[in-house]
């Protein structure tokens, strides 16, 4: 595949590309920031990127949301309802997981009075040595 073809192929996937870039930003934040709250933000960003990707995969140009109007029940009128259901599931699970992550962060802060993951690790090591 030449470079021009590659770019042409990519230009047909603008929604997916933005989802992937958002995913990359989230992973970078997760790896680079030492602050636990920022890590949680990065985690939520990767979640959102995956939902954007799924929703983009379910979309069909020029069609309506899958709610039956005027009794028309044909495949050619509505978008794919399956990714919508999957994204709904994912959003609920991500709410639950980020709540648990934030609660763990609060407990860490109460114990060590810092949000820096490196400081927390060294303090925990010192505690173990004692």
């Amino acid at each position: 595949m030449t470079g021009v073809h590659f770019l042409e192929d990519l230009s047909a996937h603008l929604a997916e590309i933005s989802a992937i870039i958002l995913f990359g930003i989230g992973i970078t934040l997760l790896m680079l920031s030492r602050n636990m709250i920022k890590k949680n933000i990065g985690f939520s960003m990767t979640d959102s990127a995956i939902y954007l990707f799924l929703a983009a995969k379910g979309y069909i140009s020029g069609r309506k949301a899958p709610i039956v109007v005027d009794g028309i029940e044909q495949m050619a009128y509505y978008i794919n309802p399956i990714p919508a259901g999957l994204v709904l599931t994912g959003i609920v699970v991500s709410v639950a997981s980020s709540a648990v992550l934030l609660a763990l962060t609060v407990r860490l802060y109460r114990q060590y009075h810092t949000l820096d993951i490196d400081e927390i690790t060294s303090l925990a090591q010192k505690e173990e040595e004692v």
Partner: protein
Amino acid sequence: MARKNEHYEESLLGRLDRWTQSGESGLDQRMMDDLASPPPPAASLPQKELERRMDRDDRMKHHMLLQEQATYDRIRTWGSVRGSRFFRRAYIVLAVLFCLALIAVLLRATATLPPFGNPDNPMHNDVARRYIEDGMEETGAVNLVAGMILDYRAFDTLGESNVLFTAVCAVLILLRISKEHSDATAMLELEADDRMYEPQDDLILQTMVRLLVPLILLFGIYVILNGHISPGGGFSGGAVMGAGLILYLNAFGFEKAERFFTFRTFQTVSVISLSFYALSKSYSFFTGANHLPSIIQTGIPGKIFSAGLIPYLNIAVGLVVCCTMYALYTLFRKGDL
């Protein structure tokens, strides 16, 4: 340690050692005596000269010790100062490179995907066709997504509701502060952290909340009850109602909110909703799934009492989500429900 020493002194090796050390002759004993007695030339030197020499020796020794200590410190702290900075920089560079490589790989894979918005994509297959063309007859729901998640895949949604409930339980375990075990000053501190610097009874907020909260709750109930007819459903409506309750709590404080929502309320509502969901869906599993005839009629699509169990399941899910949102907020803010 002392015990080990005794053992050693009583043992054969210890006795042999003592014999070689002291010997039969009194030579070693005399040597020890010589060493113990003060050296004779030191006494002949003037006191001042002696002090000066001692001082010089001490200073040299001290200097050498300092140098040694500095070398040791440099070696030992390299890992936590210069070394950590070096590893930190290497880590940042590697992390950025890894993320860029990840994005590149994903973009390369995206270029080979079927085009965006094309109706002939392989993922718009017979499953989606079945849901769209037969979904309304089989489930009675006009909103095909609601019919899908609460009828065809209702067990999935039961799992989701349970995930939310489990999350609240986990947060409760992590964050709950029991009033019996913590003293009064700690509770006062928490209260001060929470509300001391905020306006206590804000008139503007309270007036607006009196107007808005009934409307927000009504809208949430509307979204839940119309979940099978229009866009919406238990999750979105429950989130709206939870937001309304949180707004009420912020305006009027915990004393007034606890009149209608305590930990008991949360327990009762969540457990009853989840049990109702599980029981009704297992009933449907035994009687209605796999094209076995179901007693529950789907009704006329578009009417409010239609779509079989879907409106009731929506209500159960909505109550669970509403309680979960409110409980998470109060747990993070006060450490209690």
